[in-house]
């Protein structure tokens, strides 16, 4: 398969692939997936795809619990992880006014989400630490609506 790029054989932990051929099941994709809960639909690509990602919330070994946050994607340059920017207003009581602040958040993005670009809005859910800075996992992507859809977007 094309997803075997690493030096070790990539497979879903826990599903046994080498059962004696009885006939039918060998053609079908023997894949495990789960629903993350909280009303989030698991994407079709997660169920039918062939990627292996142990940190994917749908086909891997992470559970979503704790906070659910949203933000805008700032960068997708890392392998399978993105940076999200969350803006908020901070109140200064002396002047009775607000100031803009933002925080960046690193979130793991499963290969189930394809065609995701900078500027899209995204919902992330808290999971256990996946790396030094990543504690969140992408659950849902809302693509940026380009007003005047006939505008030229860099392909």
């Amino acid at each position, binding site marked *: 398969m094309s997803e*075997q790029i690493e030096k070790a*054989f990539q*497979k879903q932990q826990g599903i046994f*692939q*080498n*059962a004696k051929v009885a006939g039918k099941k060998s053609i079908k994709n023997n894949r495990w997936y789960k629903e993350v809960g909280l009303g989030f639909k698991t994407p079709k690509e997660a169920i039918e795809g062939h990627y292996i990602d142990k940190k994917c919330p749908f086909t891997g070994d992470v559970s979503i619990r704790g906070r659910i946050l949203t933000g805008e994607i700032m960068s997708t340059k890392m392998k399978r992880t993105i940076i999200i920017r969350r803006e908020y207003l901070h109140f200064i009581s002396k002047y009775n006014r607000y100031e803009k602040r933002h925080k960046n958040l690193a979130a793991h993005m499963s290969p189930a989400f394809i065609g995701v670009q900078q500027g899209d809005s995204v919902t992330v859910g808290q999971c256990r630490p996946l790396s*030094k800075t990543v504690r969140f996992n992408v659950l849902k992507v809302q693509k940026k609506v380009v007003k005047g859809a006939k505008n030229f977007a860099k392909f």
Partner: protein
Amino acid sequence: MAPEAYANHPSAPLAIDTVYTHIQYTIAVPSMTAIDSPQKKPLSTEHQGCHYRSKRAGSGSGSGSGSGSTFTSQLLQKDEGGNYCISRDSRHKRSASGAKRAQYRKKRKFELGRQAANTKLGAKRIHEVRTRGGNRKFRAMRLDAGNFSWGSEAISRKTRIVAVVYNASNNELVRTGTLVKNAIVQIDATPFRQWYEAHYATPIGARKAKGAVKVESEEINKARSNHVQRKVEARKADAKVDPALDHQFAAGRLYACLSSRPGQSGRADGYILEGQELAFYIRKLKK
């Protein structure tokens, strides 16, 4: 088990440079003599400040349970101030923004790390470690056998590990023959062959030696009761084995993958590679 068993062996169809010198280890060198051999390992540079406290411990060979003798604390190094040398904290690392974090407290015992086991092939030598909460870990320093399972047949047998053949993380570990989880090893095929021939009453791994008389092994031809014979005949329909596995049986060596952590559990258990995984690793080995 002796090398003589493989003397008449046709060259293995899989051309791999395995280190067969490990076979000599099975000539039993009782591991108790290990007490007199230096248990101190050469200190790596990172531990230069650390006192190497080596308590002479009875190596916990056997089923690993402590016989009441002292556990070894040589794996838990402390320096002169009584601080632990390997720590697993993140306070020494730079923060996500790149800022250097100041040290504001000493290392804590709950953050400790211990030296890696680097389990090698050889006569079994396992050290018991007392861990947090009074629990134990079995640090296998040397192992020679493990419980391997043949997934598609759903059986497991204890087998000798012959050689380490591939490691996805580090080629050094292959060269030194270090047993770690997910290392690809070669195991002795005889227990599985014996089971197969008793279960299916068909030969497996038939060697294509020219003019050799096909001696059906005792397992195939042993006396069976009528009822058992009927069962065995019925099983023969499912007896087909993948040709890649068949090749390996002919050579007497199977490829397997370790799935246990020898430095934690003291065991080298795993599963026999089959199907796509086997094809993947054979391709890797050919390169």
